[in-house]
């Protein structure tokens, strides 16, 4: 037995030497994990492909970028996609030529299948103390699958991030709730009444007709504004197209749920009564934004970031009372909104080292350094004495005005550039001195609220919008993370079924909403039949397996 173990160790070492090629860095690894040795600062250029553009990337020419090169010897050369990133990834996989680092998001499986990533697990074991510290127990979630426990990439999202603001919900202009004297806003009926009453009183705003509720359904945005809210308002958590019950853990394609029929029926009713903008399903995103920015849209159902731009325009125009509050509206009062339910750590995307990398040890050391407190603070706070100072052992930002006002701040200073998609601590996570790694805080968010916003909140006895929502602690942590990150392998039938179902949903849902209410039940039944024929139950069966595997993989220490 012992013999076999030694043999395995020798093989592993040989494999590592084979992988690392000619580096001698691994000889003095014992000393050089936390503090980089002189040898490790030899200038090196690491090439990288990232599927997401970071508009602030500055070729490492900013103070923070230069500091990183100074401390590590590394110069990063990052290539971003302009067209469809999938094509570039496929070409890399087909030709077998990769940059050193790859951040491929959902296309990582193409590279894994082509053998393009190296297994980071043994490297992390040897050279990654900071990586281990940053991910903690979630390191297990980085493993590829039960059959193949390799770690191909380091997860991208902030680890242990605290959520302070709701992401999705139902929105009402502050002027509406104020005029109606802060009515109860819990269920669809409350929401409808608020819009209806206000609209009847004010048929026009600034000379233009008042719009009660408008939705945006252009391309993929339909999910944000039309279909996801059906899950959220019926007590589901954000699992993409899936509804997964806490107890049974059975995935259901969410449109098959009878509760959602009620939700869409309500939208149909809103359309029929003229409270919903008749252009909800034909307008383009910029029309949607223009309508919101004109201040005459009373209510929205959407994700917050979708209407950030027009809200900013309204604030700039000095009309904060026309911006929106966000409310956890539900189908009925017995349901609970799960916007704040904790998904644990979502490790579906991440940054990996390719098999073309000449010196993986050096690269993993660099990634490990990026996980260190030194690098995390550098990236979030900047350079001591320039961007922040230390008073009584506490970091204090010294250039807050610039941070808030200069749109080029990130690009000029390099602050924040080396966070996403690199490993990072989430907002609210504290270092050994008890201060957060990131500078964001609840106080910062509250300070940014406008006067009407604060006023509305105070009338609902809340300090932040999150206070109106059920707390994370009221729900179990989802053991599967976020189900929308679970890939259905593209060469299986399920992938095609899924795409077909998406097509059906995008066509039929708008159709049943804009047709006469008399037809709604018939159209709903037909919609269900179509999904049946496309194989929705077959897909659910397949997804059930994938989900089980995921739960097992992630919760098996």
């Amino acid at each position, binding site marked *: 037995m012992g013999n076999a173990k030694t043999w395995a160790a020798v093989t592993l070492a040989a494999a590592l030497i084979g992988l690392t090629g000619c580096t001698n860095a691994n000889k003095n690894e014992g000393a050089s994990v936390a503090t980089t040795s002189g040898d490790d600062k030899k200038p090196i250029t690491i090439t990288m492909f990232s599927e997401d553009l970071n508009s602030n990337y500055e070729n490492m020419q900013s103070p923070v970028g230069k500091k990183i090169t100074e401390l590590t010897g590394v110069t990063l050369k990052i290539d971003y996609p302009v067209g469809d990133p999938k094509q570039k990834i496929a070409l890399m996989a087909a030709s077998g030529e990769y940059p050193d680092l790859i951040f491929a998001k959902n296309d990582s499986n193409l590279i894994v299948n082509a053998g393009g990533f190296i297994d980071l697990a043994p490297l992390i074991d040897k050279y990654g103390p900071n990586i281990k510290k940053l991910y903690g127990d979630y390191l297990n979630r980085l493993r590829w699958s039960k059959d193949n426990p390799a770690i191909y990439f380091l997860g991208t999202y902030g680890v242990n991030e605290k959520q302070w603001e709701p992401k999705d919900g139902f929105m009402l202009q502050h002027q509406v709730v104020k005029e109606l004297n802060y009515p109860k806003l819990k269920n669809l009926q409350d929401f409808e009444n608020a819009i209806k009453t206000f609209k009847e009183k004010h048929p026009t705003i600034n000379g233009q007709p008042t719009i009660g509720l408008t939705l945006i359904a252009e391309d993929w945005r339909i999910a944000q504004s039309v279909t996801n809210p059906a899950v959220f308002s019926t007590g589901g958590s954000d699992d993409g197209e899936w509804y997964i019950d806490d107890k049974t853990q059975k995935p259901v394609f969410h449109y098959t749920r009878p509760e959602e029929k009620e939700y869409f029926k309500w939208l149909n009713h809103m359309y029929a009564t003229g409270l919903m903008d008749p252009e909800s399903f034909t307008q383009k995103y910029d029309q949607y934004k*223009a309508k919101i920015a004109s201040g005459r849209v009373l209510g929205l159902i959407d994700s917050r970031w979708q209407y950030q731009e*027009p809200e900013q325009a309204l604030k700039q125009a000095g009309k904060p009372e026309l911006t929106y509050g966000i409310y956890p509206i539900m189908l009925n009062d017995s349901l609970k909104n799960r916007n704040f339910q904790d998904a644990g750590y979502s490790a579906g995307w991440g940054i990996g080292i390719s098999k073309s990398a000449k010196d993986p040890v050096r690269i993993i050391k660099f990634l490990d350094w990026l996980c260190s407190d030194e690098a995390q603070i550098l990236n979030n706070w900047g350079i001591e004495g320039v961007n922040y100072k230390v008073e009584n052992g506490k970091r204090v930002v010294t250039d807050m005005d610039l941070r808030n006002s200069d749109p080029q701040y990130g690009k000029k200073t390099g602050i924040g550039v080396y966070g996403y998609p690199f490993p990072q601590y989430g907002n609210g996570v504290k270092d050994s001195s008890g201060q957060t790694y990131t500078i964001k805080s609840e106080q910062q968010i509250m300070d940014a609220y406008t006067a009407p916003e604060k006023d509305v909140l105070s009338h609902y006895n809340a300090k932040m919008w999150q206070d109106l929502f059920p707390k994370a602690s009221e729900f179990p942590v989802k053991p599967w993370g976020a189900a929308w990150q679970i890939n259905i392998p593209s060469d299986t039938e399920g992938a095609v079924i899924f795409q077909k179902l998406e097509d059906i949903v995008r066509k039929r849902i708008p159709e049943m909403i804009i047709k006469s209410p008399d037809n709604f039940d018939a159209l709903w039944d037909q919609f269900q039949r179509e999904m049946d024929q496309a194989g929705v139950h077959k897909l659910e069966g397949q997804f059930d397996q994938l989900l089980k595997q995921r739960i097992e993989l992630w919760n098996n220490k």
Partner: protein
Amino acid sequence: MAAKSTNSESVLFDIFLYAFMISVGIVTVYPFLNVLAISFNQAMDTVRGGIYLWPRIFTLDNYKEIFIYNNLIVAFKNSVLRTVLGTLLGVFSAAMVAYVLSRKDFIARKQISFVFVLTLYFSGGIIPVYMLIRDLHLMNTFWVYILPGLVNAWNIFVIRSYIDGLPISLQESAKIDGANDLAIFFRIILPLCKPVLATIALFIAVGQWNSWFDTFLYNSNSDDLTTLQYELMKILANTTAGASSADMARSGNPELTTRVSPESIRASITIVATLPILVVYPFLQKYFVQGLTLGAVKS
């Protein structure tokens, strides 16, 4: 009498013609003017909509946002170079093949036409083309902009159809003079083809100027081989990054969300990319708008 009636008919026709042209002009100039107005309008204000022909809040920010990128000069040089070189070589080769294929007596005419025309209707797909470019060692070279698309069947057939419309007697008379095929091509066909060559030059030049996908596929690692359109596309992708896909949206990373509105940047990019074409255009335009006098060539 007949002459007079034609005359009044002609005047009536002219009135209709000019009225028609002016209305077409108004309709077709609008999108461009609208883009121009938006490019000079403050981004946040543009979100409110309602910009038509004139900016509401004037600003140069949308252009400044583009010009902070410092590699635009290299990119511009490369774009000019590929446009000039690609156009010259492309027009020349297409004209040469077109002349050969216009010769009804050429014995391989049918076969060679067939080989060329088929290429318009199939493609091996992106992966094998990529491998070919790699195996020819064209990756990370300037030549990848010129060589793969050098010979284009469509251009050849357009030029050939033009030559077909020319009086053949010109060539025949030259032949009697004892000129060989190469000389006929250079001395007679090329000068006669100016209008169509200017047209093809325009098409190739605009194609070269606007292309960015080859830079993305083959040269994205070489900063000194970048092209203007590719850099502009990157800037545009930058501004839309925050909202470019549902996946992206989920990541909800505030660092990546937009600061300038995509509409505004798209407008200023359109202007920056189109301006050089508009500047060069009149030089090509004169060849196909004014027409040429055959008499000059004949003598």
